């Protein structure tokens, strides 16, 4: 039975939204946004349709719906992100392989191109760990879960709707460095809240 990743993902990012709540009350000026590292912080949550796999992976599995949450902030150059993604993979009917879910935790960095007063284009890379949990019976508990390095590229388009509210769409291409590489492409969209970084958080980050 297919899992419901988006609900789980939303619950998992709730603490992040609460932590950054003070930032929402201060709307970033649209004409002269604050500058400097960590001057703003944004929390973005999104989900997307079925992903696409390349190489050997689609011979056995089909990536399902997925969800992602990231925190974005201006960095010393460009922007930095920290985030997580939850994805599931269902086996193809003719195979006997188990389904599996994956939790990815990553950090990223990239550049921002302003396309207008409300429009921003982000392009960057991310690197992190990809933890897979297999829906299989194993004698050794350690074989049920496995972690591997992942890296990806993401292009994001941000549209400021009103105040701190931002609508975004993104495309992510990523590779997990298993011996047989796992390559996937995902599209997603969602909402975010972006504002000035609270003073206490700015002190911690800087």
């Amino acid at each position: 039975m297919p899992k419901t990743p988006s609900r789980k993902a939303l619950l998992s990012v709730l603490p992040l939204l609460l932590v950054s709540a003070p930032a929402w009350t201060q709307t970033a000026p649209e004409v002269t946004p604050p500058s400097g590292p960590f001057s703003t912080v944004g929390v973005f949550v999104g989900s997307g349709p079925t992903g696409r796999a390349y190489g050997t992976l689609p011979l056995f599995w089909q990536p399902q719906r997925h969800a992602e949450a990231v925190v974005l902030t201006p960095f010393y150059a460009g922007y930095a992100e920290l985030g997580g993604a939850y994805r599931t993979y269902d086996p193809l009917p003719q195979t006997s392989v188990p389904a599996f879910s994956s939790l990815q935790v990553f950090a990223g960095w990239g550049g921002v191109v302003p396309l207008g007063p409300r429009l921003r284009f982000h392009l960057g890379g991310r690197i992190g760990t990809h933890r897979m949990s297999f829906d299989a019976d194993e004698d050794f508990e350690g074989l049920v879960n496995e972690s591997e390095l992942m890296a990806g590229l993401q292009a994001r388009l941000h549209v400021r709707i009103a105040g701190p509210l931002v609508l975004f769409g993104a495309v992510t291409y990523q590779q997990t460095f298993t011996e047989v590489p796992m390559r996937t492409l995902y599209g997603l969209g969602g909402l975010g809240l972006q504002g000035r970084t609270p003073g206490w958080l700015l002190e911690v980050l800087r």
Partner: protein
Amino acid sequence: MRYPPRVCALVLLLLAAAPVRVQAQAGRTVLDAEALAQAGVTRLTDLLPLVDAWSGHARDGYTWSLSANALASTQEAAWQVWLDDHLLDLNLLGTQHLNAVPVPVSDLDSVVVYHRPQIDAGTVALAGSIRLYTRRPRLGVNVGGSVTGGNEIGDPGPFRYTPFATPNIDRVGPILTGTLAAADVVRDEAQWQVLAAVRSDEHHVTDDQVVERVYALYEEPRNARLVLSGGHASLRAHGRVRPGRPQAQIHAMGGLNKLRDLRYIEPLGQEVPTEQHTRYQALGATLPLGPQTMATVRASYQEARLDPRTNREGLVIGWGQTRAQASLDLRHRHGPVVVHVLGGVDRFEADPTLRLADPLEVTTQAGVRASVAAGAGWTPRAAVVVRHRFHRFRDVGLTATGGVGWAPRWGYVDLHLSYAYQPWPDVHALTTWRLRGFPMEDRLGATPVPQPGFLTGTRRATADLDARWRPGPTTSLSAQLGARLLRGVNVERYQIDLVAPDTFLFVVTPSVAIGQQGGVGFMAAQVEQALGRAVSLQASYRYQGLLGADTPLRETWQIEPPHRAAFRARYVYRNAAGQPRFSLLGQVRAQSRSLWFPYTPAQRASGGRYPNDLPTYVLADLLVRKRFWDERFEATLAVRNLGDAPFRSHPGGAIDRLTFFVKLQMSL
């Protein structure tokens, strides 16, 4: 300026110069805490890629056999490790675990790596040394800790359930450290500091060929990939009293560590399960005897054992050793002249229950070291130490170093010469103790291999010329030229064969050759360029070659790549107060092909799986570090071997692929 005749006489007599104070960089590399943090150093062996003059190899990726600037071969393991000016004897039967030093890297203030023979602190260090200096705690109570974990790529992932299944690649670590420190000032006159540290480390072999070999030999440990599980605890105290100036200081430390590892022993050609226990205690004091005279006394006692580790073969190596040292260093300054008078005693004893012939080695030493700041940047220096093997009257050894440094405004030029003669065998060499009756093969159930010949009278002569030129405030060029002449060095060569291709087990054919004499030369150059306040670039190249050697010695040295080059780019963002908040370090290292002739039969028998030559490697690392909240938290992200080169430093060792580390550190 004119100097008193007695000063000039002393200078002429000693032909020498102060090594470290004037020529701060000649013959050594200094890595401060910031440099270590930027390089993502979690285990001490992680600092080796930063030291171009040192090279080495490891079978398990953890225990490195090192050669310091060609002063001794990797087989000799003759380099030393010092902690807060106390010699730590980590060498057990020719194997040194640098990572077994009982101090977390985060507690280090600096590391000084010496590339030349040194006579210092009442002790002779002929083959290079790594000197660790711990960070002094801040006033009050503070706690710290770190956790490091990593992953090497190449896991099967979900493909384990498909026909594309491949062996599992284990994780790296975890490495956990914790420290508790306190410091206070008493009545503005005295200061005391206490620091306690614990560290736990796991090392998993991620290479399947090593796992296969180990698993074929032993049932235990059940996880054949966990080659090392270690932990250590230590307590260090430092007190300073100020009855007047200069200050008197007292320093005490003690610790223990335990390592469970699968130790590869060359004559056996296989891994042996061991459990190493080490305990050490040390005490030191610096006492002013007058306005220009200072006395430093040090004493230490160390005990180390290789105990049995449960295994299905019932193998028990059962080695034990104790070492006690005491030294005295009297320092007197008279104008531009600084003179040290040195004395010491060193007692090494093998486990008496082994009933070996000559289990006890006691040596005494006495010497003098002097330097003169002779004006115009010239600093001649010299030192000589006479060592006497206590219970053999005729065994007298000699070590002498000398040189001259010139430090004009544009840089420095430094010449360093050394000569050492030691007529007794190395107490850390396995051969020494096998010849005295250590029944290693019997205890390990292995086929005896012939005992190599017994050599005495090791002679080493070295020459190093260092130069540095700073054409501007942002540019620096340096070059080194060196030669080493070795005679009577006991280097053994075993032929590594293979009998069971299915299990890929090594066996050592019963032929042993001894290397005695040869020469090694090298030349190296570095360029450093700063670009503004935040970016610095560094490029280096080194060539090392033989100046003639007998066959075993030549084959021992040819395992070191003749050409090595490195390029490093560093970006550091500092806040308004100048504190580094974010750093990025990119590093590319290249080394040329190396030759491993003893593995020629193994290469044939394994179809090239155990090669007798290792190809050229290019390794790239990327390290990112960010500090948070006024130095309280620190996160480091490291990607090593970014290009995923199938790097292997030893034919029988693990292949290290792209690896990803995360380190989180806290200090409150």
